[in-house]
């Protein structure tokens, strides 16, 4: 058999960005599927019992709205980090990544506040169980995002040229913004 001629080393094809994008698609599908089940169950319970949100439960809308606004800041900071990486500006990059992680922690704090203010336990009926399942997985995704930001910040501060990782990091937070917006509308606005 005749051997093929050897070519140059394969050009990088943005593997981390593509992988992160596929991971993000998986996250969106997971939350989308959960919101679809949520909507279906909400309709079923309203038809059967006349209400879905347990009586006496008040959702702290201010915290939910603030968390939504915070995602604008998160996306801005994440994009700022990409901008800084392109210019190899480590000061701006580390600051932007730290700010991203900090605001994300604030969103987690807001969600914890919502939990404590609502006064609903995880076993207090169908609504509570589904609420904690949905927002609990969202919290897990937020924690993963914070870890992503912190690791990216340390790598960037340590001198790595991480343009691709920071772009993937920004994609992650854009997707999280979309996910939270959907949760905010279905769970906190439509109720």
């Amino acid at each position, binding site marked *: *058999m*005749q*051997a*093929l*001629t*050897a*070519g*140059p*080393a*394969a*050009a990088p*094809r*943005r*593997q981390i960005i*593509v*992988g992160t994008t*596929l*991971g993000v*698609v*998986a*996250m969106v*599908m*997971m*939350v*989308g*599927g*959960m919101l*679809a*089940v949520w909507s279906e*169950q909400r309709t079923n319970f309203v038809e059967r019992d006349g209400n879905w949100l347990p009586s006496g439960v008040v959702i702290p809308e201010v915290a939910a709205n603030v968390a939504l606004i915070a995602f604008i800041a998160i996306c801005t900071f994440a994009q700022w980090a990409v901008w800084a990486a392109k210019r190899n500006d480590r000061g701006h990059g580390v600051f932007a990544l730290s700010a991203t992680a900090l605001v994300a922690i604030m969103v987690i704090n807001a969600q914890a506040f919502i939990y404590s203010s609502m006064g609903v336990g*995880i*076993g*207090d*009926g*169908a609504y*509570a*169980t*589904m609420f*904690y*399942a*949905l927002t*609990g*997985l969202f919290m897990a995704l937020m924690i993963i995002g914070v870890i992503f930001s912190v690791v990216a910040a340390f790598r960037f501060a340590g001198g790595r040229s991480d343009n691709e990782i920071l772009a993937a990091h920004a994609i992650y937070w854009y997707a999280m913004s979309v996910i939270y917006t959907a949760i905010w509308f279905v769970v906190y606005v439509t109720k």
Partner: protein
Amino acid sequence: MTTIDPTAEAISSGLEPGDSALGRLLDAVADWLTSTDHKKIGRLFLGGGLLGLLATVAINVIIGVERAGIGNIDDNALAQIFDAQLVGLVFGSLLPLAIGLCVAIVPLQLGARSIAFPRLVAAGFWMWAGGLILAMIALANNGGGLGGNPDMVDLFLGAHGLMAIGLAATGVSIATSVLTTRAPGMTMRRVPFFSMSALVTGLGLVVVMPVLFGTLAYLFLDHRNGREAFGGNTGLYDWAGWIFSPGAAVLFAIPVAGLLAEGAALLFKQRTPARGIVFAGFGLMGVAALGAVTQDAVHNVPWAGTEFYLGGSDDVRQKLYDVVPWAMFNLLPLLGLTIVLLMALFLAKPVKGVKPNLTPALAFGFLGLGMVMVGMIGSALFAIDDLGLQGTVFAEGALIYVVYGTVLAALGGMAHWAPKLWGVNLQAAKVLPLAGLGVLATVLASLPSYVAGFDEPRDIYAILVLVGHVLMALTVLGFIGLLATSIMSQDGQAEADPYDGQTLEWATASPAPANNFVEAPTVMSAEPLADSKSSYGQTHSEKGDS
């Protein structure tokens, strides 16, 4: 390469850890457990899939014995056995065999030195394996969708969640490999058929498995806390049962079509014209994912009586609402499969002066895809209310058609690529009869269920199904025996390119070495190896096809 540091004892005795038989064994075990070589991970998936398949066939035999009125199994145990049948068919056999072949072969076909994110795919394998074992432990302890032990039901749900995450991670890795690790010059139009089908399946895993995971999260929390939202453990099949439907299973059978397309081109050593049409066929089969992500196991097509009545405009509108999703989710994948099948038949046209090159890929792929097609037709018919098939064993027949069809193709794929995976060339004269036996087994294990769906359950149907499952066990055992004896005897030492192949996996040595290729090959056409062979005609690039 060893992954274990020399032990203190070995250093003091002057021996390397691998010098003793035990040391060599430990080395080998550690190497396999921690490997990030895609060929090893793929073989682990395949080995796990074969074990899972044998266990599933055994479960099917037990069910067949019971249905035939020969056995006398406790009703509670029977519930777990039916659960185990579904889990075994989809998670224990179909998924690992299809995915294992993709993980093992796709990077070789792409001319890549490694799969994308190798640690991710290794983690995916262990999550799948761990989840499957936990699911079986749960079933053995009265868990499952119909189980009575709440803790074991929780374990069953959690185990499926673990498998879903692992399989989604593997899907990310496969899809990223095709999208980013292709050899220089390999545009998306030049991606080999099997790799393209793997891409569609990988993307399908990425979109389907997270939906399953989210639903399982609801079910798990609900089951542990009051069971008010989903009605306890039976909610598993109401809300997540779609993953066990034949329609969803088709998504994981797409590599069967890719295998057939690979084999068809090799039969008379032809380049495939209009590759885009075959790619479109894979894409249409991928529409099956929609049926899964919309979480519908069955699309009911009610027709107001048995005369297929059509009323006024409101009635027509309502029927369209029923029929359009059904057609989308059932007929489009069937159309895609038909396209691939027709293209394969087109390529099978004899060429003057060329001796037919009947590879295992073609024989098993053609027969396997045929079985999958019958399963898809059954899945489409099952939805039509007027046929009265719901609540019968018809759906089980359709699922077994799809799963066993995919199993056949996976066996063919293992035989076809055995030179690259094990360094042996399985003789066609020994392998091909297994394809015939496998088809007979599949038809016997499934067709009587179709007939029983239209008729009524009879002992003769159950006995025929039982015989079918036994024959499938013989097929699989025969294949494993043939492969094992070839590996141990080393009499079938394979050459690098035994089939006069077209794609890059045949450019490297057999078995494929670590890192696959010494130097990255350059690709000039969709059939890169054919460019340097006189047995093939002019290149696509010469014909202006890029």
